């Protein structure tokens, strides 16, 4: 299912690459197996792309897309798919991932990972789009479980079953974000352990770890997946449970807001590695 099993075995623990850390990463080469970047940040093929190709000499790379909009009823943006393909051809990432969500309608890009109702209609649309994306990109995709803040009344298919069926229909893999499982348990009552048991273990190609924020509304709290804090104990526990079920798949620390010193992220990566080796 994956393009390069040998390289996958080498890539165990990584962090998201963010611009303020680029120079320090190149200079200090900390103990990380891979770096992940948001694909859309490099599609100008300008100076940021040049720096990425430089850093690629020291670290394996994975590309994480945020704009393919795999859940759009209107289908995929062919121009964007072409840019993504160009980037993949030049970067040669060991993993490429996207989200079980949508962001484009009537050509407008809404810049958030918006939720889908889990219906037969949505499944048919996402299946068609994932198949078209894999054809257009010339490789398999990992599809990530999204963070959720609402449930649609017509959602009849549990999300983990939806993903499992998507794997059966398209041959895609899954990126399991354990922080999203924790956030969703709180926000929409998803059972994270049942979720992990429902996902097809041999389709999991990567795990994401991140922190979140709390937002108080009407004396209730929603957890916001803002990648803006350290990883909490409960998410580390879920990470262990996920590794027990899926094996030692590549695992990534994501951080976007309140970006700490690189050393802090490397320290979190070390914690991840210590849990990871137990599952290897």
């Amino acid at each position, binding site marked *: 299912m994956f393009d390069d099993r040998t390289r996958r075995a080498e890539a165990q623990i990584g962090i998201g690459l963010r611009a303020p850390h680029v120079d320090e990463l190149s200079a200090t080469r900390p103990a990380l197996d891979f770096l992940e970047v948001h694909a859309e940040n490099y599609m100008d093929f*300008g100076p940021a792309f040049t720096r990425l190709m430089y850093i690629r000499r020291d670290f394996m790379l994975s590309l994480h897309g945020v*704009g393919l909009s795999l859940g759009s009823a209107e289908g995929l943006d062919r121009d964007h798919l072409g840019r993504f393909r160009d980037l993949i051809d030049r970067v040669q990432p060991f993993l490429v991932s996207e989200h079980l969500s949508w962001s484009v309608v009537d050509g*407008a890009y809404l810049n958030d990972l*918006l939720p889908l109702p889990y219906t037969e209609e949505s499944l048919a649309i996402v299946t068609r789009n994932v198949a078209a994306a894999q054809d257009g990109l010339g490789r398999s995709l990992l599809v990530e479980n999204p963070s959720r803040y609402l449930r649609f*009344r017509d959602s009849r298919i549990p999300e983990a079953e939806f993903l499992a069926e998507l794997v059966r229909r398209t041959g895609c893999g899954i990126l399991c974000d354990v922080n999203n499982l924790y956030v969703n348990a709180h926000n929409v009552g998803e059972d994270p352990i049942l979720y992990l048991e429902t996902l097809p273990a041999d389709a999991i190609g990567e795990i994401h770890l991140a922190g979140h924020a709390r937002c108080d509304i*009407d004396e*209730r709290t929603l957890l916001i997946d803002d990648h803006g804090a350290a990883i909490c104990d409960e998410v580390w526990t879920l990470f262990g449970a996920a590794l027990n079920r899926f094996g030692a798949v590549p695992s990534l620390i994501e951080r976007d807001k309140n970006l700490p010193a690189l050393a802090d992220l490397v320290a979190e990566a070390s914690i991840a590695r210590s849990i990871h080796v137990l599952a290897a």
Partner: protein
Amino acid sequence: MSSLLEIQRDFRRAILAGDTTALAAFIEVEGIAAAERIEIHRNNARMSLSAALAETFPVVCRLVDARFFAFAAHEFICGLPPDTPCVAGYGARFADFLADFPPCRELVYLADVARLEWVLQRAGAAADGTPLDPASLGGLAAADAERLTFRFQPSFGYLCSPWPIIEIWRANQSEVTARAPVNLESGGALLEVRRRDGVVEFRELAPATFAFRAALDGGTALGDAIEAVAGVEGEFDVNAECAALFIEGAIAGFNLVGSA
């Protein structure tokens, strides 16, 4: 119509127009009102796009203050949302929007400052190109020269303004703490922007040189660009001007109008 498409259009209305009524009917309440749950997504989308605009247009933001900028950005996002997920390149039409935005009418120079910031942003992000070797034009018949069109390096851009936008831009950099007043009658600008050795730079051009380069950059054929310069003040040596384009590495490619 697909019911998913209907939900996605309702979501668009909720995010861009703040109308959550139709979408809320599809959502479970579960302790927190549907509108509050939708607001999380609305906030994510608008705040991230507003932040992308503020990053591209920091001087406009400083000129109008951050709160007014957020208001203008919100109006722009709602009316002209991005059409691509590469949001660092969002804002091509922001200057035109500001030019027509009634609350900004008294800031007559604001749209041109936004145009400058847009060209600077694009120059900073553009791909590196290989300068065209002038020898590649060697096979052309002299009679064909006037039909030549040139493709400029991606980082090059041209803009003109009747306002002193360079002085305004310089006076409103974040490191400038004491802003000296800029005399709006001090003259306009004819600018060329490019990236050289990783640094974005701009310079003022003589009127004829500006007219020539801006015409060529806009796809005008060489013969017509030379004609366009005829009415512009100042001396103009066509051969020297053409040579300068190649010496400065401005040209990435060429074509002949009317040929395949």
